[in-house]
């Protein structure tokens, strides 16, 4: 039986590569010449005090040169708090606790360098590390570059380390431009397409508020009546959902671009009050599922991996066929945008 405390300790110890000095030539050469000069003075004067001070100087320089390596090898880092969602290109803050003061540069996902660890005027709490992710994905760990010159700042040492996150970080795409959306059947009035229904589905009743519920769903009369926060509970939408098919290319940058447009499209559909089923064509096949809001859409797109051979499990390739039933968007050409919006029909054989 393993020791849970030991396992926890091992998890907190940041794994990573070897420590190595950064541009060591100048500090080491300078130290060597300082000590050489000092030795010449000691030898020429024959003074024991000069040698004694030189010994202290040598000890200080040795510690200043080698000490950061030891400190860096022994430093313990732990990510204590991480948000569950982030967006490409937007900063996201993590909380990190470090046993020693080190400069931390996030590499993957990337971010600006910052110092973490004990500092003057701060309690022994955690420090904020900011990430600015450049790609979508679900991140379970951070690759960082650690650097230190403690305790004297004479020579910097660095090492690569991997930090486990306490929970997954979903990095969704940027909000791109929506593809042109098809007109709805009942949208005969000029402004009806812009009408946005705030409540999706049919009201079923009220229930106590749960974390994550939209504040728009708060039922104030029931809240006032019961004395606790109550929200409306809805039945699922009776109308057929909109199916958005996203075909992610294998090339990373193009896949990002497609994901951004898809996200923009999904948000536009949410704003119209439509129920949406998102189908992503990925490396592992088609994945289909309902997405209820921006967060779930962002998470679905964060997990989506580009495919070199787009196709579903039935062997269908490309956007859904046009004809009766689902009507493709007039401008939503999958060949150019990778995003297809069809109204009101779920494809058979999609993997939920």
């Amino acid at each position: 039986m393993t020791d849970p405390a030991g396992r926890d300790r091992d998890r907190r110890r940041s794994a990573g590569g070897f420590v190595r000095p950064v541009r060591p030539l100048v500090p080491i050469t300078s130290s060597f010449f300082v000590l050489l000069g000092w030795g010449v003075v000691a030898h020429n004067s024959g003074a024991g005090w000069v040698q004694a001070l030189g010994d202290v100087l040598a000890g200080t320089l040795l510690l200043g040169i080698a000490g950061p390596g030891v400190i860096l090898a022994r430093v313990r880092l732990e990510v204590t708090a991480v948000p569950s969602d982030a967006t490409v290109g937007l900063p996201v803050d993590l909380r990190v606790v470090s046993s020693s003061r080190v400069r931390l540069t996030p590499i993957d996902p990337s971010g600006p360098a910052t110092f973490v660890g004990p500092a003057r005027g701060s309690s022994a709490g955690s420090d904020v590390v900011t990430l600015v992710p450049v790609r979508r994905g679900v991140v379970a760990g951070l690759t960082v570059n650690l650097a230190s010159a403690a305790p004297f700042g004479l020579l910097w040492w660095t090492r690569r380390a991997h930090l486990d996150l306490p929970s997954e970080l979903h990095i969704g795409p940027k909000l791109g431009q929506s593809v042109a959306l098809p007109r709805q059947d009942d949208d005969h009035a000029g402004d009806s397409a812009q009408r946005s229904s705030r409540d999706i589905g049919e009201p079923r009743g009220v229930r106590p508020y749960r974390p994550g519920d939209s504040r728009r769903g708060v039922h104030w009369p029931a809240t006032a009546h019961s004395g606790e926060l109550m929200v409306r509970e809805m039945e699922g939408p009776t109308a057929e959902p909109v199916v958005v098919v996203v075909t992610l290319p294998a090339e990373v940058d193009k896949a990002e671009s497609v994901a951004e447009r898809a996200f923009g499209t999904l948000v536009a559909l949410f704003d119209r009050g439509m129920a949406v089923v998102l189908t992503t064509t990925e490396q592992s096949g088609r994945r289909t599922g309902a997405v209820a809001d921006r967060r779930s859409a962002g998470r679905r797109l964060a997990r989506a991996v580009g495919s070199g051979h787009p196709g579903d499990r039935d062997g269908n390739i490309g956007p859904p066929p046009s004809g009766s039933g689902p009507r493709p968007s007039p401008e939503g050409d999958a060949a150019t945008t990778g995003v297809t919006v069809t109204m009101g029909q779920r494809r058979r054989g999609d993997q939920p």
Partner: protein
Amino acid sequence: MTLIEMVKRANRPGPPENSAALRLACAGTVITGIAACRAEGELSWPVALVSIALVSTGMYLSYRTRSRPLGWLKPILALAALAAFVWFFRQLTGQAFYDVSTVEDPLALLFVWIQVAHAFDVPARRDLSFSLAGSASLMAVAGAQAVDLGFGLYAVAWIGFGLWGLVGMWGSASDGGRIRGRGLVGTVVAVSVLAAAVLAVLPAPHVAGRIDFPANSAGGVGLPGAGGLAGDAGRATEPARAGSPAGRTRVGGFLGFATHLDTALRGSLGTAVVMRVRAQRPSYWIGETFNTWDGESWKVPTKNVPVALFAGSPFAIPPGVDAPVVSNPVAGTSDLQTFYMAQSSPNLIFHADNVIDVWFPARNIYLSGNDTMVSPIALGPGAIYTVRSQVNTATPAQLRSIAGPPSASESPTQARQLRVDLQLPSPYTRAKALAEKITAKKATTEAKVQALIAWIGSHTRYSTDIPPLPPGQDTVDEFLFGNRMGFCEQISTAMAVMLRSIGIPAREAVGYVPGSYNPITDLYEVQNKDAHAWVQVWFPHYGWQSFDPTAVVPLANPSPGATLFHDAGRALKALPLVPLGVLLVLAAAAAIIVRWWRRRPATWALAVARRMERTGRRAGRPRQPDETLNEYASVLDAMSGDTSGTWRALAWLIEASAYGHHEPTPDERHDAERLSRRRLKRARPAPTDAVRPGGVLVPRRDSHGLPPTGGSPSAGGAG
């Protein structure tokens, strides 16, 4: 990148340094360096005070203007630095030699003024690091002159400021990083250990390759009587009064550094440092030699007229005026010794054997026939002189090659010298018989000397606490055939007389033993109690060779590391171990109590919960990290077979107290504590089924005493 671009890049000003503490630390190192130079006489008081004031002002001004440095200041500072260099090189003009000893005073001043000028322009961290590093040069200049442990105060202050500054540098570079107390202690310990390791590994620095050697009269005035001996008070018969008059003799100080050495009594010698010696190897520092023995005292022959040497430093010392020619000297090495007088001293010029040159702060010195060098000026505290000797100590094998004592027929000089060095006031029949008996089977002079030393070592005892001999009592007879107890003068005199009685030339030498070696200052610290007397024996071809029958253990070259460890061992042995042990035990007990106090449960609920966990742990079922107290209580109930859920009730009470604002009543508390202390049987593997004595299978029941649902059909069916 061109050179100009590289220089521009290197000189690019850094961001302004906002840490006042870092500036304070850097200013502290510079001011400490200036103070150390002043303490070692490198700077005058006005210069030191003005420079300290200017450095402080400059540092403050730099701090105030760190964000907007004064543009007009830089050219002025550059000009000031240039002027300092010009002044320095003008000071050196006309100097015959350019080594550290001739340039150190101007060099110290140059370093100080560079630091002063620089202090006005230190807006950034890099500028402060230059101040920090530059202060080391001041400490080097001061340390080169330091000969006592008083410099340690400055060294400790400088090291303290320096470490503070370096840690501050890291704090500044790491955006306010700080090193915790434990880290700071670790840093200091690491620096100390590394420094001690370097000290232990490196050999001691010895004066070598220098062109000029220190000599300083320290204001010593001329003495009357050309070449005459003068004690501390300037009189020839005065002994050195470095010790307090105490003991049985009521005489303070060593009686030997005078015109005669009375062996009947010994003065009480104190531990005051008489002088410090920087030397390449430990030696007996000879002050004077005697060759006329009258049964009670050694005397310098009155006909011995000192010869004045007027060559000026360095004084070349010729071979002994009346001494026989050393025809086959040992090819030795040069041995430099610099003597730093710490107290008023007799006007003897101390030295190791076989002096070649003397650097002395006077126009002349005197040399007597018995190889004694005499100063014409009084030697007070601060007087310095340097002596170079030729180490020609013959090896035992070389001495064994000499078959017998010198013959008077070799030369008239030798015959005359032999008469002096074999002189005895009486036949010393018993001493001679004893010496002949001891050396009967020894063929060579060296073997005879060693046999006598061995005999003295095994048959006599050393003591300074013996009453003075009555007047007229022969010291040698009393020592050899009386109580055989005496001090170094009596021991060495007895040996010299025995040697003379069997025809071996010998004489008495007085001076100091090397003293304790200080690895920090690299100086031998000679105390008054180190005054000593020993024997010199003449060997044909090799000259006078020293033998110390009082201490037959040969001396070894010092090693700083070995000396430190040896001293540390001695210090440890000298420690009051029992009181220290008691203190350590008390400290450990206090630490345990403090630790327990800090970790004690903050609330009643926590205390009971811990007790509950302890009970479970003792029963072999510790609480898992992901287990709530309620779940754990259920497990304990199951283990104990308690169907009423006592542990769960206890858990409920704990949680209600901790989180539910439910303050338990005294009865509840009492019951809960009693329950939490209840012993729990060690967990045993639960049987799958129980077998009644009748052999009928029954399904096992859960903790509530109910049969499990969905049990195996066989078990259920059997029931």
